[in-house]
C-alpha cells in the first residue's frame, strides 16, 4: 500500500485529477474481464474533446508489481544476452530446442495466463515490459506473440472454465504451443474469403473441419493447440441459413491437421510460418469458443488486444540500437573528427531517442488503460500504437544502419537482421493501411452518430446552428484561446510543458472542426476517401502520441524521475514537430486546399495501373 498512498499524494500535489486507476483494488486489474467498459479517449478527440481524466495522470504500477517485474527482467535479459544466438537462428531459420526450453523454463510462454493455471499472471503493462526484452530476437518475439498474444488469447478471453482448465496449464508451461488460424489466401473483405468450413456431425457432438489452405500461420508447424476460425451454418433471426464464423479450439491430436513447409521469409526467419490444412478434423462441440457464429468478434478482440505490445517491443529494440550505434559513433573517426560530432549523425540519434520515447509513452499509456478494471475497449489506441511504432521502428533501424554506413550493411553486424525483422511489424496483425482505415473510420462513426443531427440542421440552413458554428470558427481563428484545462491553475500538465500542451489543445480543437467538416462534406461516402482517412488517422495518431508524452513527462517531473529534464525536452520537441505536421495535414483536408495533391496522385496511379506499367517514354527516346 506504500506505493498506493504515495501516488495519491503525488497526484494531489501536482496533478489535479484523482488517480482513478490506483483507487481500484490491485488484484482485480490482473484478471481478464469480459464486461466492456466504454473508454473513449481517442474517439472523443474526434469531437474536439479532451477526456483528460482517462490519460492523466500517466498510469503507474504498484511497488509490489514493480518489484515483481524487476525480478523477472534480469534473468530474461541474461538469457537473451547469453543463451540466444540470434545470428544462428536467423541463418538456420530455426529456433533451437534448448532455446525454446530456456524460454519455457522462464515462464515466457504463459506471461498473461493467470497463476491458478500455471502462468505468470502478469498484467498488460508487465507484459509490455517483458516485450521490450523479448524483442532482442525478432523470431522469438514473434513465436511468443503468436503463442500467447493471439494463439491462446481466445481461450483466455472467451473460453469456458473447463476449456481453460483443460488447455491453459499445458500452454502456460510451453508443453503445448498455440497458433491462431484466421488468414486465408485471397483474404478479402467478404465472408467467402474464409474457406475453412465446419459442419456439425449427425450426432450433434462434433464439428467436421475442412479447409483448403489456411496460410501464413505463425507457429503453424509447431502448434499443438490452434484457435481456428471457420464458417458454420447458423440460422439467423428470419430463420434463414447463413454462414457465420465460429472459433474452435483444435488440437493437432484430433487428426487431419497437416502443416506445410515453413515459408522462407525476409525477416523473423527463425519463427515458423506455414500453411495449415484441415481435412475432416473432428472437433468436439465443447471446443467452440464463445458461441457458434460469434467467432469474428472473438477474432477481432484477440487481435485488438494484442497490438499494443508492439510499441514497447519496438522501443526496446531502438534503445538497444542506440547503444550499439552510439558506441560506434563515439569511437569512429572521420576527417579527424568523431562521427558523433557531425550534425547529421547527431540528428539521427535525436530521431531514434525521440521515437523510442514516444513509442514507450504510448505503449505504456495504452497498457495502463487496458489494465483498468472492467476490461475497457482500447482497440483504437492499440491500433495507433501499432501503426506508430511499426513505422517509427523501421525508420530508426534504417537510421541506425546509416550511421554505420557500409559496415552496417554487412552481416557482421546485426543491423541488417534488425532491418529485415522489423519490416514485418508494418504487415502482420492487420497491415498499417487497414489499421489506419480502422482508426479513422471508428472515430468517424463515433463522431458521426453524435453530429448527424447538427449537420442535418446545418444542411437545411438552420440559421441558429449555422451562426453557432460560424461563431465558433471565428473565435477559433481570432483568439488562440482554446482551453481544455490541461494547463493553468487546475492543469494536469506540468508548467514546463505548457507550450506543448497549448499546441496540443489547438490541434485538438482544429481536429474536431476538421472532422465535422469532413462529415459534412462526405457523409457516409467517407469510406471511399482513403487518402482523407489516412490523414485523419495520422493526425489522430500524432494527437495520441502528444497526449502520451505530455502525460508521461508531466508525471516524470512531478515524481522526480532521473533525467526528467531530458524527457521534457523530448516531449517538447516531439509536440512541436507533431503540431506543425498536424496543422499541415489538416490544412490539406480543407476544401480546395492547394496543398492537397490527392486528385493528381489518383490520376497518376490510374494511368499506371491501367497499363500495369510505368507509362512514361524513356528519356532517351526520340520522335524524329
Amino acid at each position, binding site marked *: 500500500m506504500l506505493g498506493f498512498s504515495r501516488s495519491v499524494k503525488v497526484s494531489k500535489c501536482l496533478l489535479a485529477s484523482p488517480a482513478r486507476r490506483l483507487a481500484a483494488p490491485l488484484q482485480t486489474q490482473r484478471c481478464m474481464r469480459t464486461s466492456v467498459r466504454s473508454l473513449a479517449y481517442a474517439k472523443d478527440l474526434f469531437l474536439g474533446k479532451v477526456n483528460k481524466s482517462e490519460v492523466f495522470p500517466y498510469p503507474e504500477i504498484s511497488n509490489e508489481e514493480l518489484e515483481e517485474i524487476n525480478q523477472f527482467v534480469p534473468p530474461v535479459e541474461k538469457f537473451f544476452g547469453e543463451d540466444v544466438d540470434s545470428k544462428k537462428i536467423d541463418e538456420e531459420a530455426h529456433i533451437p530446442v534448448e532455446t525454446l526450453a530456456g524460454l519455457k523454463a522462464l515462464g515466457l510462454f504463459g506471461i498473461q495466463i493467470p497463476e491458478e493455471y500455471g502462468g505468470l499472471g502478469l498484467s498488460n503493462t508487465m507484459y509490455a515490459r517483458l516485450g521490450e526484452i523479448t524483442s532482442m530476437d525478432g523470431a522469438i518475439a514473434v513465436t511468443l506473440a503468436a503463442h500467447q498474444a493471439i494463439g491462446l488469447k481466445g481461450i483466455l478471453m472467451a473460453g469456458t472454465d473447463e476449456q481453460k482448465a483443460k488447455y491453459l496449464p499445458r500452454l502456460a508451461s510451453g508443453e503445448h504451443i498455440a497458433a491462431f488460424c*484466421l488468414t486465408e489466401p485471397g*483474404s*478479402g*473483405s*467478404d*465472408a467467402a*474469403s474464409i474457406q475453412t468450413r465446419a459442419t456439425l456431425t449427425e450426432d450433434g457432438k462434433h464439428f467436421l473441419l475442412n479447409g483448403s489452405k489456411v496460410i501464413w500461420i505463425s507457429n503453424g508447424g509447431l502448434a499443438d493447440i490452434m484457435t481456428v476460425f471457420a464458417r458454420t451454418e447458423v440460422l439467423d433471426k428470419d430463420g434463414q441459413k*447463413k*454462414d*457465420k*464464423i465460429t472459433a474452435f479450439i483444435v488440437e493437432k491430436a484430433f487428426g487431419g491437421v497437416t502443416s506445410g513447409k515453413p515459408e522462407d521469409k525476409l525477416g523473423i526467419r527463425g519463427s515458423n510460418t506455414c500453411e495449415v490444412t484441415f481435412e475432416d478434423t473432428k472437433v468436439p462441440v465443447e471446443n467452440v469458443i464463445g458461441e457458434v457464429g460469434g467467432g*469474428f*468478434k472473438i*477474432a*477481432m478482440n484477440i*487481435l*485488438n488486444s494484442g497490438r499494443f505490445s508492439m510499441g514497447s517491443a519496438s522501443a526496446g529494440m531502438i534503445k538497444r540500437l542506440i547503444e550499439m550505434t552510439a558506441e560506434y559513433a563515439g569511437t569512429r573517426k572521420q576527417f579527424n573528427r568523431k562521427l558523433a560530432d557531425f550534425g547529421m549523425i547527431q540528428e539521427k540519434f535525436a530521431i531514434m531517442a525521440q521515437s523510442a520515447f514516444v513509442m514507450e509513452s504510448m505503449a505504456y499509456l495504452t497498457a495502463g488503460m487496458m489494465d483498468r478494471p472492467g476490461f475497457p475497449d482500447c*482497440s483504437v489506441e492499440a*491500433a495507433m500504437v501499432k501503426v506508430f511504432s511499426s513505422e517509427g521502428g523501421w525508420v530508426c533501424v534504417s537510421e541506425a544502419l546509416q550511421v554505420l554506413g557500409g559496415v552496417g550493411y554487412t552481416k557482421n553486424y546485426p543491423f541488417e537482421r534488425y532491418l529485415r525483422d522489423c519490416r514485418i511489424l508494418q504487415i502482420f496483425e*492487420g497491415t498499417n*493501411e*487497414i*489499421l489506419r*482505415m*480502422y482508426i479513422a*473510420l*471508428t472515430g*468517424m*462513426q463515433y463522431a*458521426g*452518430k453524435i453530429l*448527424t443531427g447538427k*449537420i*442535418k440542421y446545418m*444542411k437545411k440552413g438552420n440559421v441558429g446552428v449555422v451562426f453557432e458554428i460560424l461563431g465558433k470558427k471565428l473565435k477559433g481563428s481570432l483568439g488562440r484561446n482554446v482551453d481544455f484545462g490541461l494547463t493553468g491553475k487546475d492543469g494536469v500538465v506540468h508548467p514546463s510543458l505548457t507550450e506543448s500542451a497549448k499546441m496540443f489543445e489547438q490541434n485538438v480543437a482544429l481536429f474536431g472542426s476538421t472532422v465535422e467538416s469532413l*462529415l*459534412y*462534406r*462526405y*457523409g*457516409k*461516402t*467517407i*469510406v471511399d476517401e482513403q487518402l482523407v482517412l489516412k490523414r485523419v488517422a495520422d493526425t489522430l495518431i500524432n494527437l495520441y502520441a502528444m497526449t502520451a508524452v505530455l502525460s508521461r513527462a508531466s508525471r516524470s517531473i512531478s515524481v522526480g524521475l532521473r533525467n526528467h529534464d531530458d524527457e521534457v525536452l523530448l516531449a517538447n520537441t516531439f509536440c512541436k514537430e507533431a503540431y506543425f505536421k498536424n496543422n499541415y495535414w489538416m490544412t490539406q483536408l480543407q*476544401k480546395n486546399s492547394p496543398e492537397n495533391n490527392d486528385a493528381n496522385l489518383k490520376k497518376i496511379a490510374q494511368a499506371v495501373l491501367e497499363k*500495369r506499367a510505368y507509362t512514361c*517514354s524513356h528519356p532517351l527516346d526520340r*520522335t*524524329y
Partner: protein
Amino acid sequence: MKVTRLLLRPQHIGWITPFFKPSLHIPLLQSPLPRLCCGQGQRWIHCGSSVCKNKPDSADFRELFEHETEKKDKSLVTHDDLFAQAAKDAKTKANFNRVVDVFNKKDIRRRGHVEFIYAALRKMPEFGVERDIVVYNKLLDVFPKEVFVPQNFIQRMFNHYPRQQECGVQVLEQMENYGIMPNVETKVLLVQIFGEKSHPMRKYQRMMYWFPKFKNANPFPVPHELPQDPLDLARFSLTRIANDLDAEITVYQFPLTDITETGEEIAQPHIVGIQSLEQRSLLAKHNPNRPVFVEGPFPLWLRKTCVHYYLLRADPVPPEEKIEEEPDPELIGPEQSFFYPQRVELDLNRDLGDDDSFDVDDVEEGPVYAMCMAGQSDQATLARWICGLQETNPVLGQIPTVFRLESGTRELQAAADVHHSPEQNAEPGTEQEHIIEEETLRSQGMKQSN
C-alpha cells in the same frame, strides 16, 4: 492549300523580278528555267505568274498561255510514259529510282523537272514507295541546287520562283498525307534548293513542329504492316478489341490443310478466341435456362484490312432474376480491424459541393462472355469454338447456345436480329475511325492529284 494562296499573292509584283536578275550569280540558268517549266496545266496560275515575269504584256500572255497548254500535255505524257515503261517490268522501288536517275542524267539543266516531280509524286503509290522517305529525298534531289535561293532582300520578300517552291511544298504535302516525317537530309536538300526562309522550308518547319506532337497521339496504334499470319492477325485484332490485360488468348484450332487418301482436300480453319477471367466468372454465374448467343460476323477495320469477329453474348439479366449478394455486415461494417471497415452507419450523404460525379445514364446491356476470330464463318467452325470454350467454362455444356450468324440470307436475319442491332451499333467506335481515316486519305489523295 493556304500555301498556294500565299505564293500567289505577290504575283503581280513578280514582274519586277527580271529587272533585278542581271545582278544574280547564276544568270545563265535563271531566266530560261521558269519559262520551260510553264508547260503544266494543273497550275495555270503559276504558269501565268512566271509568264508575267517575262512578258508583262497581257495579250502576249494569253497567246503564250494557250501555246504552253498545248505543250504541257506532251510533257506530261512524256514523264508519265517514263514511269509507264518502267512499270512494265515491275513496279518496284528500284525501278522507280531508275526512272528518277534516268531523268537526272538526261539533262544537266534538269529541264522540266517540276513536271517530272509532279508526275513522280502521282506515280509513287503505284510503285509502293509512297511511304519511303529515301524516295522523297531523291525526288527533292531532282531540283537543281542553289538556283532558286533568293540572293537579296527583295527576292526574299517576294515570291521567288513560285512554281518551284510550290512544287517543293507539294512533295512535302504528300509526305505529310502519308505521315512520313522528313529527316535531316530533307532539310539539307531544301536549304540547298530553296534557301533558309523559303516556303518549302517553312512547310518543313511546320511539319517538324506538329509531326512529333501527333506521332504518339493514338494510344492504340495500328502498324502499317499488319501480321501476315492469320493467327497473329487474329491475336492482334482480338487484343485490340478486348483492351483488358487479364484477357487470355486461346488458339482453339490451328489452320491445317490436309489431303485424305481419297484425294479430298480438308481445310481446317483457324479459331482464335479471347476471354478474360472476369468474363469467365460472369459466364459461370449465367442462368443455364437462358440461352447464350453466338453472333457475328462483325467487322473490324485495321487500316485497309477488314477482319471479322464473333461474340458469345447473352441478353441482359432481367431485374427480377438479379440476386444481390449481401456480405455479412459483421465483416464489412465499422468496429472491425481485420478486414478494413467498408461502410459507416451514418444518415449523412455526400455534400452537393463535393459531389464531382457526373450524371451518367447506365444503359443495361447483355454481357459479352467471349470473342473469337475464325478462318471460316460457318456454324460448324463456331461450334468447335464453343466446344473449346467448354473446357474452361464447363457451365456452357448446360446452356443452350443459339447461333445467329449473318451470312447470305439477309432477309431472314433481319427479323431475328431486330433487338440486337443496337449491339452492332455499339461497336463502331473503332470501325468508324478507320473509315474516316480512309476517307481523309482518299480526299487528300484527290487534293494532291488536282
